[in-house]
């Protein structure tokens, strides 16, 4: 039991959440197609689940791993609803189905950075998530598996394939 544990989630302290906030927000950002307002909504919903005890931390994993999993679940549920709204809006003719937001590459990004960006963007979603969790968020393969709710073997395979695809893309740039 923590001194400053949440009323409905006694193993989670507000201080620990605040310390993980930036990392969690960036994880949410990458799950929300880099839309800050969307990521903020996802984080707010995730925190609310924690405060209310609807998502309860039992201490079997690290707080970071567990929080990343909650954030991912919230984002996925939200995307499912947004996809339905989008399909409805498209059917009603209020939105152009091809009008997806696009991100322009930075003019000053060098060839390697551009290749990395394209290669990561071209990865299947699960491979991209594993790569980010392991290479950027410093999680182990086991922790990444907990966040994604899949087996360690599956995560290992995705990680290996992601690295293979990236290596191929970067070697093409260097050879070219």
């Amino acid at each position, binding site marked *: 039991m923590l001194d400053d544990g*949440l009323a409905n989630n006694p193993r989670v302290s507000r201080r620990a*959440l605040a310390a993980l*906030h930036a990392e969690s*927000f960036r994880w949410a950002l990458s799950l929300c197609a880099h839309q800050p307002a969307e990521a903020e909504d996802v984080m707010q919903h995730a*925190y609310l689940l924690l*405060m209310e005890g609807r998502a309860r931390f039992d201490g079997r994993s690290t707080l970071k791993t567990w929080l990343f999993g909650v954030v991912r679940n919230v984002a996925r549920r939200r995307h499912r609803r947004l996809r339905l709204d989008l399909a409805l809006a498209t059917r009603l003719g209020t939105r152009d189905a091809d009008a997806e937001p696009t991100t322009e590459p930075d003019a000053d990004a060098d060839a390697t950075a551009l290749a*990395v960006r394209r290669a990561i963007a071209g990865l299947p979603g699960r491979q991209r998530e594993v790569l980010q969790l392991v290479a*950027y968020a410093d999680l182990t393969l086991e922790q990444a598996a907990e966040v994604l709710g899949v087996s360690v073997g599956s995560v290992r395979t995705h990680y290996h394939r992601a*690295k293979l695809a990236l*290596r191929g893309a970067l070697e093409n740039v260097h050879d070219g």
Partner: protein
Amino acid sequence: MTDDELLRHVREHYARTLETVPVPPFDTVAPGEAGARAARWRWPAAAAGLAAALLLAVLVTRHDGTSAPPDAADAEVARLMADLTSSTRWQAPSDRALTVAAGPSYLGVPDLKPKTYDPDEVTSWL
């Protein structure tokens, strides 16, 4: 290219794309405990309010679709209950026919005019 080099590129990519976006302060994103408690009751309270509004609408809406003024709702309900408990009755069968007398329609029950039934037909129902 070694694994370390590869992962360095990946880290740089994510640092460029994610760390350039300002992080909103924790306290503006995370609700306080009091806020969470208030939010917890928001949906049940809204649902209860909606149910009460629907019930009131049903009570004050007459069968012809017009609404009685709210202060007449109690009298209307009392009259409805009296009608519903007393208006549908079987009359004693005559030689040739049974007559069902039904009250006016309320609460979506269609109007039933007094109707004459053939005794043979009634027997077949039984």
